């Protein structure tokens, strides 16, 4: 069978769960293809890997697609995956009494400049009309620096956010999945050339991935178990992750919806605010060629 190499931006991130489910439920097999999952250090790295020809279909931030076009990497968003930042939260220590407005002039930890967490921090500043210092501390430094009091708040991703809120160490002061207006933040992406050469493979891949999502929605217990195992987290956190991210994802992957260009543009605008230059119009990177036909499980 033909092999599709799927690039995923981190291990404990919902796309990994979906792809892993597709593998375990043999959905790729049912489509007559084989899948090879590779996990990268982050979104930019995943995108580079696709550009380097080391990954065929990836899940990534849509803004990267637009930025890539100006750098000689022609790809498109093939399927709409997430309309928001599910599980992302602005958090402070539980014992802290700070609210969002109080962060004016304070320090907020982000993973790295230009990353998703940076975008959310910038958006917070704009939306709440406050100014704070964004402190890049890396993924591994987020919670330690928060606990140590080096920063006043941190933009935390899931399931880390659920974990530290459950453990009572931190509390949420802003839930980005609720506050940020819906925008096409993440999608399944492939190079134009790959789409052109192997459209059937792309189609089958999307079928399996969305089939897997459907399976997860339908099988809570199995899914929670999978998350528990993959992420090495307690089942109750896994359940939170399931409820708050998996269940929020777009189920059809449709790119031809009337609001799509607008929602994609919104995502690009947020990226611009985060420092990205040279972004083309949203219409450039939309591909409506595929519509997932969910693989039966």
């Amino acid at each position: 069978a033909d092999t599709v190499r799927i690039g995923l931006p981190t291990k404990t991130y919902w796309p990994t769960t979906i792809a892993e489910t597709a593998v375990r439920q043999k959905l790729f097999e049912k489509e007559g293809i084989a899948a090879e999952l590779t996990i990268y250090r982050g979104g930019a790295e995943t995108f580079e890997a696709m550009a380097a020809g080391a990954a065929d279909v990836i899940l990534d931030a849509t803004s990267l697609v637009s930025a890539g076009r100006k750098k000689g990497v022609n790809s498109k968003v093939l399927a709409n995956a997430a309309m928001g930042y599910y599980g992302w939260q602005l958090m402070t220590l539980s014992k802290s009494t700070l609210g969002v407005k109080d962060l004016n002039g304070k320090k907020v930890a982000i993973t790295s400049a230009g990353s998703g967490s940076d975008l959310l921090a910038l958006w917070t500043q704009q939306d709440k009309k406050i100014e704070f210092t964004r402190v890049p501390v890396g993924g591994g430094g987020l919670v330690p620096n928060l606990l140590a009091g080096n920063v006043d708040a941190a933009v935390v991703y899931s399931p880390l956010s659920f974990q530290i809120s459950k453990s009572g160490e931190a509390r949420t002061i802003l839930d980005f999945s609720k506050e940020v207006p819906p925008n096409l933040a993440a999608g399944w992406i492939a190079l134009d050339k790959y789409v052109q050469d192997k459209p059937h493979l792309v189609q089958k891949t999307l079928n399996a991935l969305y089939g897997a999502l459907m399976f997860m929605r339908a099988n809570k217990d199995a899914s929670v178990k999978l998350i528990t195992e993959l992420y090495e987290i307690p089942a109750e956190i896994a359940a939170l992750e399931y409820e708050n991210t998996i269940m929020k994802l777009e189920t059809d992957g449709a790119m031809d919806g009337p609001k799509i260009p607008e929602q994609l543009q919104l995502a690009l605008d947020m990226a611009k605010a985060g420092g990205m230059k040279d972004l083309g119009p949203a219409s450039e990177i939309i591909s409506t060629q595929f519509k997932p036909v969910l693989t039966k499980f």
Partner: protein
Amino acid sequence: MSAASVRRLIVIGLIALWEILPRMGFIPELFLPSLSSTLAAGWNEAGEYAHALAVTLYEVAISMAFACGGGILLGAVVGSLPRPRILIMPMVSSLYAVPLVILYPVFTVWLGIGSESKIAFASIYGFLPTMLATAAGIQTIDPQLLLAARSMGATLSQRLVRVIIPAAIPTVLSGLRVGGALVIVGVVVSEMLISSAGIGYLISRYRTILDSPHVFAGVLLVLAMAVAFNAAIKWIEGKAAIWQTGTRAGQSAEEIAPAALQPAT
């Protein structure tokens, strides 16, 4: 053709390739933007880069003092005393085996994300190899020379400064080279990992948003630092050449090269 001109040709060749390959589309701009667009990117944000360079240079300078100065001195001390050498050296090289890069984000908790943590990281990163290399080099010194110095009543510090370090000059210099280079790498890497200032910070920020010309403008600056550091070492080597007369490194090439390279006829 003289060696310098061959080297120049290689450099020119590399520069030409850097310009041509991306322009012709052999390498996507994402991986390697052309030299001209890199320079343009750097020029456009000259202020930002200058500020970053200042931060990085400051960190490099301080780390260099710790890593190279401390590394050479401690390496010389440990290398010349048999007991500490046997006891400490294995511990030290084992210590270096702890992958600090991985723990670095956690260390920022105690060191903060400012310059201190970079200096600490780069100092350790450059210190241990310098120290280990120096200590190892010390062992190749003719023990008779140390005996002679002792007989003349040289104190430990006198032995260190007047015998051990001059006798180990080639080793010390290369310790300096390795240590210095590692300090540069250490500072930039730690800035790339976690920071809000410096060249490493710019590199990783621009990289996250796929702005490769700006990434490589940063890389160019790192290279410039390496060039400057190399020049400094060359200068020290020139100063030290006078010490080296009569040792291996000071011999003219013709005297030694034939032995090793030409087939014995």
